[in-house]
């Protein structure tokens, strides 16, 4: 399948370097609602109908260019740990954004999505940007969750909301772009940790974890 990235999600190719901010974004939602598919569509422009459970790749990056800022998403997939309700708290540590995904053809997954939102509101950083994605919008004929119901819930809870389709790419780039726009991009924002926390790297020199070059 050909790579198909829309304008919103291109890598900065040779353009003069603007401010670069890196953000950790986590995906949440019931098994099989299409979390990995959304990311694969966004990062690689691909869709596989019979996507296996995510193996070996639960950590992808993609860049979104805004007017004056390049937003680099470090996207964390659940790696299946949500399956038996065993997601580790370290998963949402320091996450600046989350996409909570449900399947519009399955009412239960919407209920679970609400629980994930609650969990994030309880456990994650208070400033986290949360987006709700009603995925599989290409299957509208089998719809079980009304758009208006989800929109109302999102409004009440201050969430971004879109119905998406990883299959047709509908709203996939858009939802990441909307998140990128909503994230604070002030000086020091986007540093993986609150100033001074660091990742370990092979080199002796500290790897800059701050967003600003």
């Amino acid at each position, binding site marked *: 399948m050909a790579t198909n990235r829309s304008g919103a999600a291109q890598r900065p190719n040779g353009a003069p370097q603007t401010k670069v901010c890196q953000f950790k974004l986590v995906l949440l939602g019931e098994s099989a609602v299409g979390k990995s598919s959304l990311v694969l569509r966004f990062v690689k422009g691909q869709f596989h109908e019979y996507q*296996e459970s995510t*193996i070996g790749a639960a950590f992808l990056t993609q860049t979104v260019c805004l007017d004056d800022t390049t937003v680099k998403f470090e996207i964390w997939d659940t790696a299946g740990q949500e399956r*038996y309700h065993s997601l*580790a708290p370290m998963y949402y*540590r320091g996450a600046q954004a989350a996409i909570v995904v449900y399947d519009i053809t399955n009412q239960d997954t919407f209920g679970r999505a609400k629980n994930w939102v609650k969990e994030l509101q309880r456990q994650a950083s208070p400033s986290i940007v949360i987006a709700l994605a009603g995925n599989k919008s290409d299957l509208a004929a089998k719809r079980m969750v009304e758009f208006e119901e989800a929109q109302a819930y999102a409004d009440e809870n201050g969430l971004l909301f879109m119905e998406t389709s990883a299959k047709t790419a509908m709203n996939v780039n858009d939802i990441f772009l909307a998140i990128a726009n909503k994230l604070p991009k002030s000086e020091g924002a986007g540093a993986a940790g609150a100033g001074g926390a660091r990742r370990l790297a092979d080199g002796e020199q500290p790897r800059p974890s701050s967003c600003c070059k």
Partner: protein
Amino acid sequence: MDDDLPTDFQVIVVGTGMVESIVAAACSRIGKNVLHLDLSDHYGGLWASYNFDGLQKFIKEVNSDPKRDLQVYNLCEKWYIEKESPEAKDGGDENKTDDSKAEPAKKTWSQSDFTAEYRKFNIDMTPKLLFSRGPLVELLISSNIARYAEFRCVTRVLTWLNNRLMPVPCSRADVFATEAVTTVEKRMLMKMLTSIVGYNEDEMNNEFKDWNDKTFQDYLKHKGLTPNLIHYVLFAIAGGNNNMPCLEGVKECKKFLMSLGRYGNTPFLWPMYGSGELPQCFCRLCAVFGGVYCLNRPIDKVGTKTVDEGKTVVTIESKAKTLNCDHLVIGINECPKELISPEPAESCDISKAVFITNGSIMASEKEPLSLLRFPPLADDDKAVTVLEVGPATGSCPKGLFVVYFIASKSKDAETDLKPYAERIFDMSGGDAESDKPKCLWSLFYNVKDTSAPVSSVVEGVHVCSGPDAGLDFDRAVEQAEQIFKKICPGEEFLPRAPDPEEIVFEDDVTHGPEFQRDHDDDEPKE
């Protein structure tokens, strides 16, 4: 809910402590089909960290556990502050704060403030540091698990000398900058430290062959070091005591010195949000490579059965289901006692304490992260390791510090550790001004030492030790590697996991329907 849990695995790991989690990651990484369970609803077992609410639940659980199945006892929690803050007083304080921006008045904390901000606490049951060039840091980097975690450098090493806290000069620059020792002493110290770093294993054994039955202290005296220098080297750098054998002291010094200069001014790193994050990082890697996770999954019975061709598998009864595996890796606390052989030798339990205070034990310009190695105050005391972490580590709300005390047990945790705490905290609970930070809350407890390696009477069952009293994770890493080598002889221990860019590249080229997985490597159908 977990009825659809698959039943057949190559490796089942029970318990999510440090050793278990590393083994789980290593097995999954090389393609073993792994199920990882925990009896409780959270990760880490005795290695866990808790928010304030979680900690209260843990305390309750321990107190309702007379059989000491949890391996924790003598638990004693105490508040030094009021239940509610007096409202009027708060208003007054706020005004004061506005006037003097440089030195805001200290907030008067109440118990209800702790309850309200419970999520901002991450309190470790097994707080430990990483040596910058120690085995765990090397493993995190070489396996690429490092990307799941963040760390902070310990900013200073302190000691208790002449009845007060003193910073220990760690680096060459520190040594020369310090005013605590004379120029002659500095040269002497540098000469000795440089020679210790220079020795390889053989040279070390050769140089110290006549010191086998002598203490490190004797050696330092022999080298002509002054009492102050001996104190720094013996207690603060080597983390020893008066009886520390010479060669052990030399090795500890070398370990300390070798880790200098990699990341910060001291040899140590502290994981953001606490040590309890680290097992979770290994679990994530295990999951990323297909490991199945299920918390809240008690096990009733472990047995064996013989299947076709005389092969024996380990069976686990859990929630009316039989789980089968070739290898069972199980934490010592979860392991049925009849499987353990022989009974672990009598060991010295651990005395621990956690304090929450309203300021650092030693003021500093930027938020400090401190290691204090307290030399024994009395002759028959043990040395006490103290770790002080602040809000920047994600351990507590702004304005507070969490301070951990760890020592080998003599009597009980409170008797062992309180005299040390009183040296550096104001534990009166009163309003009186003090130059020491006020202790707002404390928890003393003893932990059974389950760190001695034990084996199982059943083939295919591998028992993982619990936390030790040591400063670092080195023993856990070493044991995990040994267990892995038994399960997967000849296989590489945690080879580097690919970076996201590498995965994207590979898949872009092949356009295969599968994602990073070969057909002959299929997971069991669920």
